[in-house]
């Protein structure tokens, strides 16, 4: 199915996305109650959103820093020469196909692509940049920044949850 932005611009769809973006664990039954719709309507809407790749996945937001796991995240600024007839998309694809690339954005401004990679060690990141990224022929230059601490990811703050500090009863 061909999708244009306007196709999904109704309040019902918007609210389904708002709910699932915050917590994708709600059931269709729960969402139906929240939005005062039938379960069938909700199920159909979610199915359409999935088929159109508007809902592109359901993933947990994990604070890996709390786990005994070695991981290094780097943000790499990449300058590229766009290829004739294909612009940036082809180069971007050659980059984002690597499984260690967690995110890849085309940017305005002083460089072209932001590439976020996650590896086990610093050495692995260096290897990725030197052996995989830099040699791609249209890549002009790279500039690698290592992440020291993640404060907020995907809209979720990685701190202790704030406690409900309200009085138990307020009339």
């Amino acid at each position: 199915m061909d999708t244009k932005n306007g196709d999904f611009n109704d309040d019902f769809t918007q609210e389904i996305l708002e709910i699932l973006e915050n917590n994708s664990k709600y059931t269709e039954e729960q969402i139906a109650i929240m939005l005062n719709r039938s379960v069938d309507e909700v199920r159909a809407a979610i199915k359409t959103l999935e088929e159109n790749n508007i809902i592109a996945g359901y993933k947990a937001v994990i604070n890996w820093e709390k786990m005994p796991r070695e991981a290094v995240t780097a943000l790499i600024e990449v300058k590229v020469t766009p290829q004739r007839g294909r612009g940036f998309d082809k180069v971007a694809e050659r980059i984002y196909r690597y499984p260690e690339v967690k995110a890849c954005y085309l940017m305005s401004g002083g460089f072209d692509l932001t590439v976020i990679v996650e590896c086990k060690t610093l050495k692995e990141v260096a290897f990725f940049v030197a052996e995989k990224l830099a040699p791609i022929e249209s890549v002009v230059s790279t500039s690698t920044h290592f992440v020291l601490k993640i404060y907020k990811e995907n809209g979720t703050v990685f701190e202790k949850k704030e406690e409900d500090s309200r009085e138990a009863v307020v009339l």
Partner: protein
Amino acid sequence: MNMAAMISPLVKSVPPSGIRKYFDLINEMENVISLGVGEPDFVTPWNIRESGIYSLEKGHTHYTPNSGYFELRKEISNYIHRRFGIEYSPENEILVTVGGSEAIDLALRAIAGRGDEVIIPEPSFVAYKPCAIFTGATPVIIELRAEDQFRLTPGLLEKFITPNTKALVLPYPNNPTGAIMKKEDLLKIAEILKNKDIIVISDEIYAELTYDGEHVSIASLPGMKEKTVLINGFSKAFAMTGWRLGYACGHPELIGAMFKIHQYAIMCSPTMAQRAAIEALQNGDNEVKAMVREYNRRRRVMVDGFRKAGYDCFEPLGAFYVFPDIRNSGMNSEDFCEKLLFEERVLVVPGTAFGQCGEGFVRATYANSMENIIEAVKRIQRFAAKYNRTGF
């Protein structure tokens, strides 16, 4: 000295709040979900908090003008016009107060005294009656009914108006019932008040939180602006309860009288809060809308939960409360609340806390996280399955 004898009889005549005992109970319990908190669970939006912080950094730590910063009054004036279509002059028709609470107190004190009657529909917010009593006036209670969806009907109102009636408290959207008054309901009330010298104290603190069309203020109806003191504030709409900021709008003469009391009793509302409130009115609309959407979803989950538990629950269309009829449990309101707290660790408030006619009902707020509401509803349904007399 016998201190008790020194206390004013007016103050003594008001019994202490019956809700303290729940504080003591709940403090000793773990894993309680409190649906008894009459304030937003949201923290004040960051841009508003940031403005408060910035005002401290800039050293805005002094008194403001007695009636509030002119800039804030201008923003309030714009806001009330934009949202409810009423024009108030920031010069002399708006007073910034310490919460809607102070505005309620000021309005009553400025209007009522010994020999006057103040009509108060119940169930309603707990402050109206004591504040009326403190002025020396006589509160006249109208008992609202579930079959009217807890709206004030013209028939009820007419029965209680006497030559001594000085003011009518109009508490919509309502705490604790969640009832609202639509334009057609308000027109009937306005019709009755048309040729009478009665001031309407319209507490519209929940005006932003409505779920079936926009709130209508009685002050926007023909001939009613002059007779109405409109009370609103930042606590509920912008999740700013702790900042203590509200306001009153009305006739210059009445606002002037309220100003006089405010000037001597309070001086001015908190400075930092006023700075933050300017930001709230200028750039708060999107956050308010997002909060209302979330409240609305929780509202539906809670109403659905009580109904599936076998308790009649009229659809509340305002504020953040549901007010189910729990008589099917075979208990009165107090027993229901106590048992539910002990057995299922869910705290709701007996309807009787808001007036005698609240017997048979409880107030539960959905100003709590969706996760907590879903869990609380589960517990309530388990409780209902154990005790309900009919159908589950």
